[in-house]
């Protein structure tokens, strides 16, 4: 009998084009997503070497990081952002790559667009010059972020030089409690294993609580596997995965669908497959989470308090906590629910899908944002925005006092006009609370869309379980 394999092993083995004696592999890439920030230097490299794009048909471009989320008729006013976006358009035209420009209803955050179009499929290798490419792992695709030199390498060769990762399994058993979202599960996991806990590994998420998540929830979890240091996150494809894909514009059609489906069903890890590292959690023990510091591992349950650096034995860790609390303007021992906020951001590749907007809207319906709070909803794509409007979610948000914006990365990384002012504090559904991430001096608390909605209403961090 052959050795039992993990989902990762199967995808990896399938894609090896060449294996050197030292174990370094050349692996084939099935889907290459590109955006305006990390691709211009790659195209410049191709031009100077006179190299074409090997598989433009497996490449999709979308502008997301720099695009304005206000009225699109005014275009991009920032000259540097405009140059990047225009350069992407020119490069796509010159090299024959599909491009969803700002005027295309399908435009949006690259990691929301891929799955939405049915481009993201089980068993694929997917790369993008963006660390949150891990999102696509929710479909049982091996998906990871790469640098610009590798973007150029993939454009030229449709392959990457890689060494295999180690296998790690994170099993979340039991069921989520009321008001507990996929975001809380992944924040809880990062809190447990740390931001370097997954380094060198691909994390396969498993267990009842993961199986019970929708595809949107699974994408939220895999999205933040990079915040645990992992190369990628993976979830075994199942009936939910197939149902999500069926009929999407770029999913396999007719006879090809049956053939693809038969292949996809062979992908889940074999019983007895070996994982170099195993972690288990009980979903029932995870409360809604919020971050208090400047790393995603600085996380606690909403009913907790700001931790005290003095309790830390390791001096470097103590210093890091002190620095984080000073940056965040927080004191040890404070109740997390007493932290007042200025801004709420519901958006990003972590939490700007239709289900996220539905969850937040359910919390704010017939209620109103606190007077002192500026609140934004930035849908993940034009199609998510359309769908939300068809369901009347835009009215719910606007009536509650939210701004309803155009799709893009927006305040997740503040490359467009959406940013925090120094000292401003934000309840955010994004993925990183690093210093300055949402604008220089801005203070970020990460949480689920439901929790961000609750914070918007209360004007402070709040426990959504008291509202639902």
């Amino acid at each position: 009998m052959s050795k039992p394999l993990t989902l990762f092993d199967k995808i990896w083995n399938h894609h090896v084009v060449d294996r050197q004696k030292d174990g370094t592999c050349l692996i084939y890439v099935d889907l290459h997503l590109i955006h305006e920030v990390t691709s211009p230097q790659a195209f410049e490299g191709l031009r100077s070497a006179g190299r074409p794009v090997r598989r433009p048909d497996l490449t999709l471009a979308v502008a997301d990081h720099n695009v304005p989320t206000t009225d699109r008729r005014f275009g991009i006013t920032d000259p540097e952002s405009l140059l990047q976006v225009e350069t992407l358009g020119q490069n796509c035209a010159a090299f024959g790559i599909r491009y969803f420009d700002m005027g295309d209803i399908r435009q949006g955050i690259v990691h929301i667009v891929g799955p939405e179009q049915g481009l993201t499929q089980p068993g694929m290798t997917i790369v993008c010059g963006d660390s949150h490419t891990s999102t696509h792992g929710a479909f049982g695709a091996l998906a990871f972020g790469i640098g610009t030199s590798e973007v150029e390498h993939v454009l030229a060769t449709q392959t990457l030089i890689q060494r295999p990762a180690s296998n790690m399994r994170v099993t979340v058993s039991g069921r989520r409690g009321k008001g507990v979202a996929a975001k809380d599960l992944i924040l809880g996991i990062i809190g447990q294993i740390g931001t370097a806990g997954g380094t060198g590994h691909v994390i396969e998420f498993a267990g009842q609580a993961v199986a019970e998540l929708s595809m949107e929830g699974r994408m939220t979890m895999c999205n933040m596997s990079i915040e645990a240091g992992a190369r990628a996150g993976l979830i075994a494809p199942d009936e939910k995965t197939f149902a999500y894909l069926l009929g999407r514009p770029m999913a396999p059609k007719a006879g090809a669908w049956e053939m693809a489906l038969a292949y996809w069903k062979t992908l889940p890890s074999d019983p007895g497959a070996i994982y170099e590292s195993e972690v288990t959690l009980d979903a029932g023990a995870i409360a809604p989470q919020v971050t208090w510091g400047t790393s995603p591992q600085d996380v606690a349950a909403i009913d907790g308090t700001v931790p005290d650096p003095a309790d830390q034995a390791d001096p470097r860790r103590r210093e890091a906590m002190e620095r984080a609390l000073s940056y965040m303007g927080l004191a040890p021992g404070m109740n997390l629910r007493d932290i007042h906020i200025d801004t709420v951001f519901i958006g990003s590749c972590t939490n700007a899908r239709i289900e996220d907007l539905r969850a937040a809207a359910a919390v704010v319906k017939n209620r109103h944002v606190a007077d002192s709070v500026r609140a934004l909803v930035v849908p993940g794509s034009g199609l998510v925005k359309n769908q939300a409007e068809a369901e009347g979610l835009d009215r719910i948000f606007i009536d509650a006092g939210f701004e309803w914006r155009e799709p893009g990365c927006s305040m997740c990384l503040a490359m467009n006009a959406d940013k925090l002012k120094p000292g401003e504090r934000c309840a955010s559904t994004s993925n990183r609370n690093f210093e300055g991430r949402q604008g220089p001096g801005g203070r970020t608390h990460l949480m689920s869309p439901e929790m961000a909605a609750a914070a918007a209403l209360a004007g402070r961090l709040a426990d959504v379980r008291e509202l639902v």
Partner: protein
Amino acid sequence: MQKFDTFSGVAAPLQIDNVDTDRIIPARFLKTIKRSGLGTALLYPLRYHADGSERPDFVLNQPRYRKAGILIAGENFGCGSSREHAPWALLDFGIRCVIAESFADIFYNNCFKNGILPVVLPKSEIARLTECAERGANAVFTIDLAKQEITDPDGRTLTFEIDPFRKHCLLNGLDDIGLTLEKAPAIATYEQAARQTQPWLFK
């Protein structure tokens, strides 16, 4: 790519864990279509006050470390975003080698594409090197990649591990794409097979 064989320089000690790429180069500096000119923004939030003036106490602003070519860091250096602007900023500043307890995967990989050598050493060795580096501009370290050795200012040498293929590419300044294109027949063979087994991936 600039090759890396031996390098001598002053080492700046940066005793912070989890230095993320947003700190190495904040997103607002990524609005460029070039690789060059990012050195002035390297470690911006640590190096500058909000008004853009320098923080005199920050290591790279101290006269003895302004020309540092080596950075000595803590755990999980380069975590976060995949932006290659992080190694570009280091290189533009003049850093050719980063020594740390551990690195985040994507950053580590990106270094090799830009002629920067990332070296992983245990905590105790980092502490010893940091002590030497604290002596400033007179403390010169020499790194010999072929021998996988670092010589500290006191003449002590210590060895480090590195993947042989990456070492080979860095020593010779090899262009990955050029190497891979030599395997074009194997790529074509793979595609031929995939066209049969996964026709839905071929339009």
